């Protein structure tokens, strides 16, 4: 097991209608996540964070540099639950698409519903669930994929502030019970500090790592802890935000 190792990666996109004809999303981007480590990546919108995750998941290939990662599963910002399928079948999709029969996939998914406070909602359609519940169903789907690496792309950005805080606490507890190598991309610095072992700050495009903060704050963490607040300020400074 290697976790995730991204070395000096460059990724360039051809863009029609731009004078230069291309956009450099990442240049000289490096990142390391040890097995079982939670690494948060923060940066401004459009700094290539999502591209980084797609590289880690093997959905894209770098134009230069190298990416080596254990098998990774993507969890995007939108839950992308299938509207016609029940919550249970949506979670079980991770198994179904690998050829597991429907009955067996459901049986494997059921225990997660009780664990994640989704008991009784197995047969609800996504439209009947709250935003936080939908995101938890999506997370069950992610875990059922059985991959050592989770690539979380702003998983809570679409939620309202209160639900987001709840879900952050929930994710922290879940990852304590179910350790995984996590690369969490977010533009919410506070979320990064509350959840991660290490925070990597990216520059605006072309994106690369410009700062790295170790978060040596005991868990469970709260956004009001003095250490969390201090780290948040440091991360914001590294991002270039006015103090």
């Amino acid at each position: 097991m290697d976790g995730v190792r991204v070395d000096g990666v460059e990724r360039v996109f051809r863009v029609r209608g731009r004078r230069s004809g291309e956009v450099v999303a990442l240049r000289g981007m490096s990142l390391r996540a040890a097995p079982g480590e939670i690494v948060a990546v923060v940066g401004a919108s459009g700094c290539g964070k999502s591209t980084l995750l797609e590289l880690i998941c093997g959905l894209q290939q770098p134009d230069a540099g190298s990416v080596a990662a254990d098998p990774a599963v993507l969890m995007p910002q939108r839950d992308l639950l299938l509207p016609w399928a029940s919550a249970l079948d949506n979670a079980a999709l991770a198994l179904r698409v690998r050829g597991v029969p429907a009955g067996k996939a459901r049986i494997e998914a059921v225990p997660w519903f009780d664990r994640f406070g989704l008991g009784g909602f197995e047969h609800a359609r996504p439209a009947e669930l709250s935003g936080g519940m939908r995101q938890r169903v999506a997370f069950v789907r992610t875990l059922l994929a059985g991959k050592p690496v989770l690539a979380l792309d702003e998983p809570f950005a679409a939620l309202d502030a209160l639900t987001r805080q709840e879900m952050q606490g929930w994710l922290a507890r879940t990852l304590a019970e179910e350790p995984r190598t996590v690369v969490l991309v977010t533009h919410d610095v506070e979320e990064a500090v509350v959840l991660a072992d290490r925070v990597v700050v990216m520059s605006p495009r072309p994106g690369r790592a410009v700062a790295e903060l170790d978060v040596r704050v005991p868990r469970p963490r709260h956004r009001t802890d003095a250490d969390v607040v201090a780290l948040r300020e440091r991360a914001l400074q590294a991002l270039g935000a006015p103090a």
Partner: protein
Amino acid sequence: MSRAARVLAPLAILLALLGAWELYALYGGVDRLILPAPHEVAQSLWTDRTLLWDNLRVTAGEVLLGIVAAGGAGFICALALHLSLALRRSTYPLLVASQTIPIPLIAPLLVVWLGFGLGPKLVIIGLISFFPIVVTTLDALSRVDREQINLLRTLDASRWRILRHVELPAALPGLLSGAKVAVAVAVIGAVFAEVFGGSSSGLGNVVQYAIPNLRTDRAYAAVLILSAFAIALFGLLTLAERWLVPWAHNPPGGNTR
């Protein structure tokens, strides 16, 4: 809108149209053999009811079979075009072109090939209703979220499994909206097919022979029945949508950015 208004508004519009038609037919100075008055059409609906009913059964059978055939063929064709870019590039324009072929032009050829039976009629109805089904199904297939596909790929889904678990269900609402458009044109198609495809029965046939026999009222009665049939089919498909794809009226994929 209140319940009463929901019923009364369409009824009022219908009555106003019929009233205007009646007045124009009676006092507009148009020959009654060219435009019969609604009361004459109503009379024909009643006195010719056996004739109209027997011929409606023929035409309805043709339309239903034609729609089902076009639905199946259209769905398969849309899938093929979705899966192969080369196929889409090379044959999509031909599909558009197929819609410009006038029925009278190809009807004799179809009769030569398939005889005077149901065959040429099904081909004509199918040819006309096939196109909207392909277009809406293909659109539904191509609207499947890019990110959704990426997500499934990180779940190790094969192309076939992505198709089976995500794209095929997502195409169903497209198929149904295509079929809704198709029912209206399929009815016109059936009339053309009967007129030009050498037919001895069906409402198209009734229309064709009523006019030289100075029975315009009967022709209008037949057309009225065809419209009612199309409306009924459309309504059935709307119900089917509610049952089969209730999700299609909510935005897909949940919260958006």
